[in-house]
């Protein structure tokens, strides 16, 4: 390795400490030193005819020396101060001073580009608008990062808003879009963010690179930050919220911002003209820096702004805070919307499958066969229109709502008629356990419906997991409760009808609302109709909450009564009565209790009356008790 013969060392108070070590270098390089404060008073005096300069000073001093270097053609090296970690990362320097001195004294300086913003040098980054936490997450592993991120994030995320950006490139291409912020990155290795966005960008490619950050929602921005943290080098696609423009010269104006912050230390007013100065200066740097910043001949302009809002969306976003969840245009998710539209339309396949699954479920219920009932659940096509209905509600798509409601109604009617018909044909058959388990819905059923709704919307949204819908169909089991309700109708047992239909209705409402909210969380709500959608969803929620609240408070009471009776025993006239099983069904003014009692001695009418009285004492409303008695032998 060749080394310089003579160098000028420029330092401020913080960088002075390196002088002795530098002078004692083992390469016999002659070192002349000057204090930065003296030099800046009369730069020509010190910098004329200088071959190589080593700087150990504040960033602003370093930038001024770089500007001189670009004019007077001396080569430049840096000895980073303890606080200048960015320099170390940027130039692939070391944490050890002697290694950095070795690099600084080498005679192998190469040219790099310089970026100017309105004539001021940009060393690391220039920022316009709001891009909270970008720097922080791009330096993953920094101590205390999580706490710092939470502190900043909490205060800034909900203040983010998109502003109008007007951009013009060197070729005269004019772009109008909306973004929360933008930045110009002038190095390829500073951070994970750089590597993620600038995989082919070099400090020697003769281009300025402008990155626009335009999240549609806080969630999307968080996803973007998360993608930076979890970035892997195999990742090729640009994150959703990002757009990039590469050109020799970029003029940027942001309506809503006044200035560009340069390297976090200084600022210049907008509009800003970013201009590349090719081969602006020769510097010394570590080996990896040169590997990653290979000399390139200037490329064509690059404009990747597909992820940024179009004119129509931009109008909706400007001048208001970005929402927590994303909105989306239909074009973005065309395939999904087409599929959901199709799902909302009634066709012959649907009718045939609905009939078959209902008949199968009804037979399975009568034969008390779980396997047959599960088979019927898999056949049942009712989930699809409910999911379409959920999307229709979210986007206030009247056509989708109308069609899916018609399809659901047709399905319910068919199922009730078919199962009632089968029940009429088999009048002698009694209620089986498979049926009884579907006439007393409780809050757990609501839980099943809600999580099935989430799962249904989620699996529908991603083609690769669409096969999971079968599992969702089994979990929520829409057709069997309808079949039981139909059986109730067919047998003229309205208790069975109402109980089972309540279970179906619970599933319907639970799935619809949960799927609507899931689609919203996944970013499928409409930009244009969002307010209307939210109003419809809220209205439906309120409208369904009232009957559900009342019916569920009754269910909870019944459930509590059932639990209470299950744990009760009775000593009636010295006869010990064990409650073996209990089923409570609430009717308008009467609570019907079906008991199976286990006793040793025969129960007389007076014993039963005492038992009834003791049960009645526990509740305020009237009880109607039916009991089967088993004897312990």
């Amino acid at each position, binding site marked *: 390795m060749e080394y310089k013969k003579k160098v000028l060392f420029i330092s401020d108070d913080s960088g002075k400490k390196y002088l002795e070590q530098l002078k004692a270098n083992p390469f016999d390089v002659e070192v002349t030193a000057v204090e930065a404060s003296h030099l800046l008073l009369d730069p020509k005096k010190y910098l004329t005819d200088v071959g190589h300069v080593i700087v150990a000073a504040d960033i602003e001093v370093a930038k001024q020396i770089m500007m001189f270097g670009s004019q007077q053609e001396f080569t430049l090296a840096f000895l980073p101060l303890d606080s200048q970690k960015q320099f170390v990362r940027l130039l692939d320097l070391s944490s050890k001073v002697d290694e950095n001195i070795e690099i600084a004294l080498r005679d192998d300086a190469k040219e790099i580009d310089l970026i100017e913003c309105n004539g001021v040098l940009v060393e690391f980054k220039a920022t316009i608008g709001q891009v909270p936490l970008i720097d922080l997450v791009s330096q993953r592993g920094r101590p205390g990062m999580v706490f710092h991120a939470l502190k900043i994030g909490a205060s800034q995320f909900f203040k983010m808003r998109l502003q109008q950006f007007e951009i013009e490139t060197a070729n005269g291409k004019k772009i109008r879009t909306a973004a929360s912020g933008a930045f110009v990155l002038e190095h390829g290795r500073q951070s994970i963010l750089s590597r993620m966005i600038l995989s082919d960008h070099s400090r020697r490619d003769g281009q300025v690179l402008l990155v626009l950050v335009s999240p549609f929602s806080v969630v999307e921005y968080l996803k973007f930050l998360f993608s930076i943290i979890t970035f892997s080098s195999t990742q090729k696609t640009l994150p959703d919220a990002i757009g990039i423009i590469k050109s020799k010269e970029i003029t940027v104006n942001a309506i809503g911002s006044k200035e560009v912050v340069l390297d976090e230390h200084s600022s210049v007013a907008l509009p800003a003209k970013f201009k590349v100065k090719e081969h602006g200066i020769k510097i010394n740097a570590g080996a990896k820096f040169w590997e990653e910043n290979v000399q390139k001949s200037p490329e064509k302009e690059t404009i990747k702004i597909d992820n940024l809002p179009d004119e129509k969306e931009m109008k909706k976003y400007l001048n208001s805070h970005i929402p927590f969840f994303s909105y989306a245009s239909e074009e973005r998710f065309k395939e999904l919307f087409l599929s959901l539209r199709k799902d909302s339309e009634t066709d012959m396949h649907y009718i045939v499958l609905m009939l078959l699954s209902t008949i199968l479920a009804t037979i399975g219920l009568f034969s008390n066969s779980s396997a047959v009932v599960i088979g019927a659940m898999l056949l049942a096509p009712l989930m699809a229109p409910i999911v379409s209905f959920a999307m229709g509600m979210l986007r206030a798509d009247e056509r989708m709502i109308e069609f899916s409601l018609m399809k659901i109604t047709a399905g319910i009617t068919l199922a009730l008629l078919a199962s009632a018909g089968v029940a009429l044909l088999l009048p002698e058959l009694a209620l089986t356990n498979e049926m009884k388990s579907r006439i007393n819905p409780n809050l757990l059923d609501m839980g099943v419906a809600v999580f099935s709704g989430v799962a249904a919307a989620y699996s529908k949204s991603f083609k690769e997991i669409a096969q999971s819908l079968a599992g969702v169909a089994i979990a929520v089991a829409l057709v069997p409760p309808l079949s039981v309700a139909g059986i109730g109708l067919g047998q003229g047992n309205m208790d069975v009808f109402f109980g089972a239909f309540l279970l179906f209705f619970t599933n319907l409402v639970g799935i619809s609302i949960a799927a609507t909210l899931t689609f919203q969380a996944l970013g499928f709500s409409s930009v244009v109709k969002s307010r209307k959608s939210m109003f419809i969803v809220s209205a439906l929620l309120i409208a369904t909450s009232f009957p559900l609240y009342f019916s569920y408070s009754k269910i909870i009471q019944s459930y509590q009564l059932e639990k209470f009776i299950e744990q009760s025993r009775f*000593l009636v006239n010295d006869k010990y009565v064990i409650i073996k099983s209990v089923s409570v069904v609430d009717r308008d003014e009467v609570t019907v209790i079906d008991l199976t009692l286990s006793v040793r001695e025969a129960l007389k009418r007076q014993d039963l009356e005492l038992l009834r009285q003791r049960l009645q004492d526990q509740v305020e409303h009237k009880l109607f008790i039916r009991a089967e008695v088993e004897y312990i032998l």
Partner: protein
Amino acid sequence: MRTLYLFVVFSLMLFLTGCGERETIKPSGKVFKIGVIGPLSGDSASIGRKALEGLQAAYAIHPLTAIGDRIELIVKDDESSPKKVAEVFLGLLAEEKLDALITLSTSDGVMNMTKVINAQKLPVIVALASHESITTGSPYISRVCMSNAQQSRVAAYFIHDELFLEKTAIFYNAETAYSNSLAYSFQEAYKKIGGEIIAEMTSGLSTKALRPILRGLKTEGVEVLYTSVKGKRSVDLLRLRQELDWDVVIIGSDGMLGSLKEYGLKGARSVEGLFVTENYADDSVATIEEVLLERYAKKNDILLNTHSKLAYESYLLLLEALAQCSSGCKSDELNSRLRDHEVFRGLNDRISVIEGEVQRPIFINHVHNAKMFMHLKVY
């Protein structure tokens, strides 16, 4: 406008203040003198003192009857001596003109004073004594705790018909009427439904003598130990079971856990999984009275147990009976109100009294972490 606004705000405040205020009872000036006799010293002092704490709590919460008559409690110690109870009672009668008596004494003590009660025709509420002959032996006694016959029969049915266990050994104290009668009633009920009593062991046996007996019972395949013994001897039994690593089901009688806690077995592994027949459970639904009692206990930093609660309910029964009495409330009328009382809210459930005998649910509790959790509730 401002005046109107202030008027509305003040009216609303007044209204809300009125809503939050509890109905107050004005003192009538009349005093009911209630004697209280219990074991406040001697062997059973821990039971008596806890019960007295419950009674004092009830008195502090409800110092007046529904019509404002004041209750005065006059407390006497029977020194845990069943023989002395009658004497103490007579002494109390000589000192004060009592309207009623609440006794916290054990079954033996109450049985010893029955003659005096009958002679004096004084209404008596028995808080803790559970021997069945107590209520049948006197037309002036009303009982608040469940009787031995009730709880032992429930235990027998539970073991045989719900746990399906048919080989049981009994551990009892031959010297107390309480323990004797429980053991006898249990044995009778258990045998009647097909159970087999393999052995009867008395608490008089030393630990040294008990050890080989228990080892033999283990070998013989005994599945259940039914114990009506409280205090140190029940601690010994549990420790022996642990020592023998014997996975036998143990069912104890009322107040057993409280008594075990007194002997430092709180939370011990040997207590874990124990079944007890009880008047209460720690996890049952609280009534308003239980809320008031717990608040009082917290404020005064006292720990309540079954005995405290039974004494509390004895006082509640007295209040309920007095509330139903006509003006002046003569002794005869008070007695009949006490002995046949339809329903009142106790600490865990509704309670009624028919011919002096309480009708209340019996809990079969499961002990976990030194607390009693309801396993079953027998009405």
